[in-house]
């Protein structure tokens, strides 16, 4: 039954080339838009994650802290939850570092009577402790420790990026949902159009004694095949656009920590599978109307 239905589906696709091509192109474009947005969203998320990996918390130590007090403080910080590495930066090291960074203008620093920079600890966080709330909580804990004068963790930037990240997340979900529903409606209507163009054929089949399965199976197979072909075509279109566009963007020259990636094979397969399912669902809703007795 299934082989026969598949043969009939294939014959129908060949006989109704134009409608099927229109349908496949429509699905391909919808898949292209959804997966292009996913590609952007995935990379934006990766970018923000990669950027946040570089975030360090700096704890400035008071001027009159003795060596044993400082060692105790370092030990206390190291034992806090979420702390991965604690590195002591002496005020002399910080001063030399500053000198190196400002290069030719370093002579400006020669006029200073004494080194104005404090001793500090540079604290790297564990991977699981990179959310803004976690960083804030940890900074507060460190700030409350004795001998710590101030704590810094690029608050402004982190807040801004966190806002962008959340905006991406919400916009991403809303847009993907909208495109998903739009794709479903487009496919359902395209199939309805195909069914409408074949209503006479369906009527004839029923007159000669075809049962619902005989009529439905090829239509479902056609819809799923359309979903598959449209899904694959959409992903291929995106891949083509990706390999033609991304080398020109060369983001690695600006952000050394980040490289734009294409959507994963698993995700591509999920999109194709979803596209096939949408074909099935679209067919299901269209068919109900046409097969009512």
């Amino acid at each position, binding site marked *: 039954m299934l082989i026969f239905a598949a043969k009939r589906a294939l014959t129908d696709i060949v006989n*109704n080339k134009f409608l099927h091509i229109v349908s496949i192109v429509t699905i391909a474009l919808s898949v292209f838009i959804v997966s292009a947005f996913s590609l952007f969203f995935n990379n934006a998320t990766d970018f923000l994650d990669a950027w946040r990996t570089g975030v360090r918390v700096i704890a400035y130590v008071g001027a009159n802290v003795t060596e044993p007090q400082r060692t105790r403080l370092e030990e206390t910080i190291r034992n806090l939850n979420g702390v991965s590495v604690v590195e002591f930066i002496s005020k002399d090291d910080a001063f030399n570092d500053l000198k190196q960074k400002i290069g030719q203008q370093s002579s400006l620093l020669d006029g200073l009577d004494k080194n104005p920079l404090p001793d500090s600890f540079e604290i790297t966080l564990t991977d699981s402790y990179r959310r803004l709330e976690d960083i804030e909580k940890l900074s507060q804990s460190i700030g409350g420790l004795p001998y710590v004068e101030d704590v810094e963790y690029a608050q402004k930037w982190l807040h801004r990026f966190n806002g962008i990240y959340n905006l991406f997340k919400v916009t991403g979900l809303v847009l993907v949902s909208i495109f998903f529903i739009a794709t479903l409606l487009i496919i359902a209507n395209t199939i309805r159009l195909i069914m409408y163009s074949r209503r*006479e054929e369906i009527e*004839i*089949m*029923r*007159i*000669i*004694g075809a*049962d619902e399965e005989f009529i439905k199976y090829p239509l479902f197979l056609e819809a799923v095949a359309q979903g598959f072909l449209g899904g694959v075509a959409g992903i291929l279109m995106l891949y083509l656009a990706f390999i033609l566009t991304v080398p020109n963007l060369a983001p690695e020259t600006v952000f050394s920590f980040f490289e734009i990636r294409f959507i994963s094979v698993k995700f591509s397969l999920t999109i194709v599978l979803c596209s096939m399912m949408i074909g099935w669902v679209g067919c299901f809703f269209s068919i109900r109307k046409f097969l009512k007795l």
Partner: protein
Amino acid sequence: MHAERKNTIIRMFNVSKRYGKMEALSNLSLEVRKNEFIFVTGPSGAGKSTMIKLLYKGESASSGAILVDGMNLARISRKQIPMLRRQFGVIFQDFKLIPTKTVFQNVALVLAVAGLKPKEIYPRVMDVLERVGIDDRAEEFPPVLSGGEKQRVAVARAMVGGPKIVLADEPTGSLDPDSAAHIFQLLRAVHEAGATVIVATHDQQMINNHDGRVVRLEKGRMAREN
């Protein structure tokens, strides 16, 4: 009496069909014996096509009862309708061929629907196409055929499943006299092969030239039977 009942293939008891306020058939009662040849005649709008539709359950009767080969059409489930329709071969004035399928595929569809395998389908379809004289056009599509050829394909489709009953709704209505005569010969051949044939037509000349019971409908009612 009992033997006569056993020989009856279609019974209609006080059958009425209403479309809104319009009554297309009104209290029609009719018995059709096995292997009978019947003309259903009457002017346009008399209810001929409605009667044909009710028999293959293209429509359901508003009231009354229809029995086809012992099956009460009012009581059969949706799933049983395809089985009922496989007992019929139906021919229409507008042929009702699928334009995107070849002549062979149009005819073969009846057997495919009944679940036959392709190797069983091929010889049966070619045989029936040969009998209606259209085997040389088996790979053509209906739009390139003449009206007479299309109707021969429709007759072949009605014949191929070996139906108990053949229903023809104005089968010669859009054909020239020669083609119409040919179609009629084919219907006769189907009848001779054992099928019950019901032809709805308003072609009086055809009725006069052939044997068969004549049922005349007027305004949805039985006007005369002879």
